[in-house]
């Protein structure tokens, strides 16, 4: 099989990329989706708060996904469901499998990687104690409750204040469970401020900052956890240990871009984001292979996933039509307070949005972008936090006027 464009993943990123590529003139597109429906993780995110930027209204996850699914249908963009991609080669041969076709290969003109991310599991956290049932990532619990209609717990402690954990604190409460605490290792929340307000504060669920779970108890089903305050080096303080009886521990300790296929193709990854290193067009270091959405870097809002994926879709179209150009080479550097940028480099002089996250909470700070010693952007911010993605716009003429091969992004007080 041959296709001009193969998109791996039919979630918000894959669909938005497909629609943008179609609108830019590509017709021979195929979306490969491993689940039994388009929509990705949005299908289980039945809460609202999606789409304010993209559609100017508040939608639930499934509603947001459906907007794009409808576009995919209306444009007649083909897709395969229950189809798992098992390999992408550097020369863009995609190997996949499904019931109808068995294991098959597609020679793609261009590939867009849109596989999303996964949650950090318990094992990776190395919590001491027993290994009973009742420990789930927040997303798995969300799947049980929202997709399967079952309750995985009655008395709940949540470790990590990532957004899915906060959302599930509220969701489990609404379903009759008692959420006893949300423990966060860091002195600040890992989730959006609005979720702290709407999901914890509105339900009187305590957020225990600088706290972690140090021990797990129970033989068959979880019976309780020991939590402890941590010092400034994030080491648990023995004297502060506290036992909380509970039958469920939900983990919301970070998301990891799912880049096994990317690695298999030999694409260079960014150590900080865990995703591919890309240029402004979201092209990886292999020409014609693009990446967008949470597989590239973990976004805070799906609206920005759509925006980024449209960039990748249009860029893939340009590549397919032979219109892409690499006229410049500018590396985007960071100072550590800015943890990373996406894109990581610019190869085309055009209006470009640069996304990034910061390493800590900063108040009354400035985002500063420098071309050598010359400050080209300085933007005041009342508050910067790791949970929120930041964005800086670089205009075409600014990029054209750069003197060096590097731009440095920093946070200054």
């Amino acid at each position, binding site marked *: 099989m041959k296709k001009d464009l193969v998109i791996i993943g039919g979630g918000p990123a894959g669909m938005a990329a497909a629609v943008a590529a179609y609108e830019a003139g590509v017709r021979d597109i195929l979306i490969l989706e*491993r689940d039994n429906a388009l929509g990705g993780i949005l299908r289980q995110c039945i809460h609202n708060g999606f789409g304010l930027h993209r559609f100017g209204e508040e939608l639930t996850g499934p509603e947001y996904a459906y907007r794009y699914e409808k576009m995919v249908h209306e444009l007649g963009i083909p897709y395969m469901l*229950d189809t*798992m991609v*098992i390999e992408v080669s550097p020369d863009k041969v995609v190997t996949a*499998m*499904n*019931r*109808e*076709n*068995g*294991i098959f290969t597609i020679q793609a003109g261009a590939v867009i990687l849109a596989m999303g991310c*996964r*949650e950090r*599991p*318990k*094992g*990776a956290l*190395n919590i*001491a*104690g*027993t*290994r*009973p*049932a*009742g420990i*789930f*990532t927040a*997303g*798995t619990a969300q*799947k*049980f*409750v929202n*997709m*399967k*209609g*079952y*309750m*995985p*717990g*009655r008395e709940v402690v949540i470790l990590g204040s990532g957004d899915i954990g906060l959302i599930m604190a509220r969701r489990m409460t*609404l*379903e*009759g469970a008692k959420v006893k605490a949300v423990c966060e290792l860091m002195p600040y929340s890992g989730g959006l401020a609005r979720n702290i307000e709407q999901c914890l504060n509105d339900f009187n669920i305590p957020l225990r900052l600088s706290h972690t779970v*140090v021990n*797990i108890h129970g*033989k*068959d*089903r979880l019976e309780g956890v020991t939590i402890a305050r941590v010092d400034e080096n994030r080491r648990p303080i023995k004297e502060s240990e506290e036992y909380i009886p509970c039958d469920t521990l939900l983990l919301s300790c970070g998301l990891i871009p799912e880049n*096994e296929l990317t690695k298999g193709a030999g694409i260079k990854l960014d150590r900080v984001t865990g995703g591919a290193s890309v240029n402004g067009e979201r092209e990886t270091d292999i020409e014609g292979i693009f990446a967008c959405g949470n597989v590239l870097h973990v976004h805070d809002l799906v609206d920005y996933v759509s925006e980024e994926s449209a960039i990748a879709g249009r860029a893939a179209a340009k590549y397919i039509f032979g219109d892409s150009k690499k006229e410049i080479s500018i590396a985007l550097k960071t100072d550590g307070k800015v943890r990373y940028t996406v894109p990581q480099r610019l190869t085309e002089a055009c209006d470009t949005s640069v996304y990034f996250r910061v390493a800590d909470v900063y108040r009354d700070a400035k985002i500063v972008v420098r071309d050598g010693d010359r400050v080209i952007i300085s933007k005041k911010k009342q508050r910067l936090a790791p949970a929120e993605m930041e964005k800086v716009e670089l205009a075409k003429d600014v990029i054209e006027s750069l003197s060096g091969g590097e731009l440095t992004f920093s946070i200054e007080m």
Partner: protein
Amino acid sequence: MFDFAVIGAGVVGGMVARELTRYTDSVCILEKGSDVALGATRANSAIVHAGFDAAVGSLKARLNVLGSKMMAEVCADLGVKYKNNGSLVVGFNDDDEQTLKELCERGKINGVDGVSVICRDEILSIEPNIGDKVTVALYAPTGAIVCPYELCMAAVGNAMDNGAILRTKFEVKSIEKISEGYKLSSDTDSVEARYVINCAGVYSDEVAKMIGDDSFTVRPRRGEYMLLDREVGDHISHTVFRCPSKMGKGVLVSPTVDGNLLVGPTAEDIDDKENTATTAEGLAKVRALAAEQVARIDFSKVITSFTGLRASGSTGDFIIGMPTDRFVNVAAIESPGLSSAPAIAEYVVSLLRENGYEASPRSDFNGTRRPMHFFSDLSIEEKNELIKVRPEYAHVICRCETITEGEILDAIRTNPRPTDVDGVKRRTRASMGRCQGGFCTPYIIDLLAREMGVDYTAVTKFGGKSYINFGKTK
């Protein structure tokens, strides 16, 4: 009345039961857990030791060397993954070098092939990531790795295919001498057998007491481990031990047959035979020691940690014998128990024969079994042929390990059948990967519930009260 009752479905019980089915189909395996391989079998170092450790003349030495030589063929017959990767026991100073030379000599006397003591340069040429301070090593080319619970499941499954019966959730509480044999009772049920083989792991001393044998005790020795992602599984190719001490062979770093990296164990004698909790201190210790043996281990790739309980006996050697008529203890099978298991099974039969058991080999015994992971070993063409008939082999359930619905259904329908999520995991590797079941657990529950004809909420993580879901949402 059965010919044999085997108490305990660990790797020793499994291998013994299989060996017995060469002679009779009247074998009953009694297991207190909800599945096989739940004791030391599922949480150990997964090593086939070459055989230089055990004291010259001990049962351990004899059965280790023999078992190690049998293992490749047994694994081939049972379709179990086995890899002869060789092992290194590393030393850091002159004292260690002396110990290693003694070990090397002992190995030669024990009958281990090809052992030699090698210097740092030689080590580096075969294992570039060896620890910076390692100066010397004992190299044993016959060292190997195997998946212990897979070997156990395959052995029990093969025994069942040859007529054995597995009774799970049957905890033997008392044993009564009856004419021509024994009556073994749980709280709710009983089984009669002419012979009893006690393979009850850390509980084998308690089982022996039921017939009045209090000649030995078994204490659990805790060992904590960490398992790392397959991404770093090729960091080393040999099993890297450190120079032994009184508390056993110390921490090892080893690739596994599934391509992960295994690091551990600690060694701590305790009294609680169920205490498999991990501790922050234990894991920190494992980390520190391992880092001396192997350089640059990326501990950020740990995907799970666990604790195993080794059955450490009061005599220092394996305790295999017949304290009374028609009753065999196979006790204190600590390391190198896995390595010895095939030889232990044969030894038990020879012991029975010496004590009057008469039987000739069955003509209908089939000692082979389809590999549990046969599908992943097929070529793409072969897979596609199979998918045409069974399309569920093209439906991936576990993304991280690429395990399909077909493989999971096969596992659920094959002896010994799993009844819970962890059982499916041990048989297929589904949910054993980097996401640790985050995505696939809900689907595996679907398949188990459907195949067993039970409600979604009745499916447990590992039997007992390990429920996953409590009921419907509002």
